[in-house]
């Protein structure tokens, strides 16, 4: 459903041309969970911004369901690494932000928002302002806010990167359960190999400067996955294989 064709991005830094992405081709099928793993500074965030329409590529094209994408739109939802909740809106209002923009009826909005408040376990916090939420809760609201908008694809840019390791594990498990329930197409970016292996169906390993796909791994673990999986030998070996590829 999502196709990147010969995508490239060059920019000038201190008078020098930097080739961040070079002829990248990638396609994501419906209901697939794809993770891109790359070293920090390999342009992962730039790539997601280009797909989301927040930055323009220097060359190449992006297609979603066969249509060429040029501008940002609600069909490509993005969950950021930074906390991006609107601080002046309550949790409920944050989740319905995209729905408010579309001028849906209040009944429809309430149903959708209530559903995602339930899914993300935030019912009791609906009237809280973001400043009163922990980091993990803020990211759950951010995910709910994006999902409520019914995007065709969910783009996630190291969404758990600013969380402590314990919250991070909880959020990974939460996302797996969510994905198993909703089967939302996801393109997930991280530098954490374990995270990618635990969450995704397919893991792409990226090379930096320029960004190119080094290798692709199909994740062999059955669903539903729980955190116990992370302590198995098979998982450890698989994680190691990807890590070696990343460092090579």
């Amino acid at each position, binding site marked *: 459903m999502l196709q990147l064709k010969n995508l490239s991005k060059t920019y000038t830094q201190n008078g020098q041309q930097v080739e961040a992405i070079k002829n990248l081709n990638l396609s994501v099928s419906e209901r697939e969970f794809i993770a891109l793993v790359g070293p920090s500074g390999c342009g992962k965030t730039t790539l997601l*911004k280009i797909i*989301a*329409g*927040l930055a323009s590529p220097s060359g190449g094209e992006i297609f979603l369901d066969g249509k060429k994408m040029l501008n*940002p*739109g*609600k069909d*490509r*939802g*993005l969950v*950021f690494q*930074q906390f*991006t909740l*609107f*601080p*002046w*809106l309550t949790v409920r209002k944050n989740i319905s*932000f*995209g729905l*408010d*923009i*579309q001028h849906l009826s209040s009944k429809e909005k309430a149903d959708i928002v209530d559903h995602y408040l339930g899914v993300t376990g935030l019912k009791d916090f609906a009237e809280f*302002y*973001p*400043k009163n939420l922990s980091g993990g809760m803020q990211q759950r609201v*951010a995910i709910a*806010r*994006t999902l409520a*908008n019914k995007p065709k694809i969910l*783009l996630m840019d190291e969404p758990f990167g600013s969380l402590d390791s314990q919250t991070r594990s909880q959020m990974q498990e939460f996302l797996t359960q969510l994905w198993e329930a909703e089967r939302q197409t996801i393109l997930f970016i991280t530098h954490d190999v374990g995270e990618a292996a635990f969450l995704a169906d397919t893991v792409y390993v990226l090379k930096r400067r320029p960004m190119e796909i080094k290798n692709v791994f199909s994740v062999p673990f059955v669903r539903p996955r729980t955190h116990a999986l992370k302590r198995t030998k098979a998982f450890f070996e698989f994680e190691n294989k990807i890590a070696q590829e990343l460092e090579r």
Partner: protein
Amino acid sequence: MRTLLFRHTPLRGLRYGMVTIALFLIALSLWSIVSYGGFISPLFLPTPGAVMAAVIQLYKDFNLLEDIGLSIARILMGFGLAVAIAVPIGVYLAISKIGEAVMEPVLSFIRYIPPSALLPLFLLWFGIGETSKIFLICFGVLPYIAFMVYDVVAQTKTELVDAAYTLGADNAQVLWTVIVPSSLPGIWDTLRINIGAAWTFLVLAEIIASTTGLGHLIITSQRFIKTPNVIAAIGIIGLLGYGTDLFFKLTYKLFFPWSEKAHAST
């Protein structure tokens, strides 16, 4: 244990009020000692009693309330006009590419002209009526408000704007549902700071060219060496300023309960 800097929680509620009252009492006693004790001639510093008597006399015989009312009305009009012009300019400067290049030199130029230097021109153009006073206040604070609003809006987090775009917002929606609400607390603070400056320009205008208002009261009292009246008028301006500040502080908490700062300020 030693008291470490920046670790204390500021005073709140009753204790905060007690400090305020204590400070007031200390100042009043010092004033009483030097004035009643005869250390300073009443011509230079009258006694608190004389100032209170002046306030009562001004109220009874000289329409003090009318002077206060007129001064406040001028502030509201001059400041209101400045806000109505400066806030959109500041927002526009911050969100538009060409806006900064076009407007910044103009505003910088205006900013470095002391508004007091404009007063003779305003008097020439608009006469000694209300217009020149209102324009002086307006032009006095306008460039500062525009600059500070520009700064506030320019600090809008890009991530929030990006988030809104990916949630389907168009440019107008990003402006009205993200940039404006996220800037409002800062804009409110800008108004709070600049309304103080508006008083300076008002008194200046009233001292030079007016037959009414608190500034006029100050300058005529000085001409007739009625020092208690001068101090009474200054005290009233101070109280009005304090009230205005309190208004902005309380409404800030009321309007922006979501702000991180809403916790902290009293």
